[in-house]
């Protein structure tokens, strides 16, 4: 147990510090190379550099390598390989505009190391009712889960600080849930996700100095998905991710196809004169979580972000209740 605590502390601190220290020079480097995009929610012509995924993945790689040195688990290797692959996929999309199917298809391939390393259990655990054995189906679930969690986090990366802030809440919730179900080793392996997200949030919060880009969002989302699989807490992880799932669900149910946001013509949100966000009445625009939050009236970018964090905390509480319910059998 002492080993676990020491490895948890070292890997979390190192991951946090790597992102904290590496991001400012990365911002300067990206700015010099003019790798910046316009922040659409600012009145002035503000350009923000990206992709911050480079510092995110550096923090994750260093901390997971430290953990592997301590614990020597295939599960940690699976986290490391799949997350790095998701980063690479996102980086390709950051540099070159790819089609709507590129990310889901390649993220499915990125999930294969989890299967090859045997870092999963084919029993799917549900609260109150127990487990169900689905050996063949579970393989399909693994291949589906990484694209879903990766793209789900990517889809909420629409406002300053939202993706990283949301990941801080969701990943620490997942760590607490892993402790509740007594999966301590994977709980330790999940800690760097929360600390890396927290360090990146410092630069990503309103007003953003850097955006994570697809590389950052996909790396965070894919790592979350792998932890859910190798930790055997797929249902709990889905509950903690519900606000982001709602966003994807609303988007897909209104657009009715897999498509990149940039391909959508109707705007779900517009700006008031004082540059607050306001829901549009455009019927061709997709319904999104932000649009629904703004249905009650215009809000600032920061207020919308905090509204999403409140939803994340609410679903986090539901996830923790779900974790306790895993121990109860009807």
């Amino acid at each position, binding site marked *: 147990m002492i080993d676990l605590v020491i490895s948890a502390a070292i890997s979390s601190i190192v991951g946090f510090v790597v992102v904290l220290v590496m991001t400012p020079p990365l911002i300067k480097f990206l700015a010099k190379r003019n790798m910046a995009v316009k922040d659409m929610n600012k009145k002035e012509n503000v350009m923000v550099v990206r992709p911050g995924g480079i510092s995110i993945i550096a923090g994750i790689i260093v901390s997971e390598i430290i953990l592997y040195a301590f614990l020597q688990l295939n599960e940690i290797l699976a986290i490391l390989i799949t997350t790095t692959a998701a980063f690479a996929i996102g980086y390709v999309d950051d540099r070159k505009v790819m089609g709507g199917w590129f990310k889901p298809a390649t993220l499915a391939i990125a999930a294969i190391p989890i299967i090859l390393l045997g870092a999963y259990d084919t029993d*799917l655990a*549900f*609260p*109150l*009712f*127990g*487990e*169900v*054995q*689905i*050996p*063949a*189906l579970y393989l*399909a679930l693994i291949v589906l889960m990484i694209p879903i969690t990766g793209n789900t986090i990517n889809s909420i990366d629409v406002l300053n600080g939202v993706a990283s802030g949301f990941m801080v809440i969701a990943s620490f919730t997942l760590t607490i849930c892993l402790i509740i179900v007594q999966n301590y080793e994977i709980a330790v392996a999940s800690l760097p996700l929360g600390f890396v997200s927290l360090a990146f949030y410092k630069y990503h919060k309103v007003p953003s100095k850097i955006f994570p880009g697809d590389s950052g969002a996909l790396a965070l989302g894919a790592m979350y998905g792998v932890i859910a699989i190798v930790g055997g807490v797929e*249902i709990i992880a*889905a*509950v903690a991710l*519900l*606000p982001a*799932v*709602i966003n994807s*669900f*609303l988007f897909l*149910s209104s657009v009715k196809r897999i498509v990149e946001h940039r391909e959508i013509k109707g705007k779900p949100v517009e700006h008031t004169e004082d540059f607050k966000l306001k829901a549009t009445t455009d019927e061709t625009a997709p319904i999104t*979580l932000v649009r*629904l*939050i703004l*249905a*009650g009236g215009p809000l600032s970018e920061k207020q919308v972000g905090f*509204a999403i964090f*409140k*939803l994340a905390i*609410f*679903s986090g509480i*539901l996830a923790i209740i*779900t974790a306790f*319910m895993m121990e109860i059998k009807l």
Partner: protein
Amino acid sequence: MKSGIFGFLFGMWILILIGGGIVVTILGPISISGFGDFDWIINSGIKAVVAIILVVIWVLILSKFKNWIFRKEIKS
């Protein structure tokens, strides 16, 4: 922000719990034999079809639930 989205989250959570119950009590015990080496493929195929049907039903219920909650919210 109105309470509708929290209600929608809670509704999704309840549907997950109910879905879990259906999967464990109905889908899990399904077992067909008599096809030799193909037993596991047929079993998995049947379970996959039932799971997909459950997901479709889940999405349809959620869509209705979403419309009901947000229509109510817009009226208020």
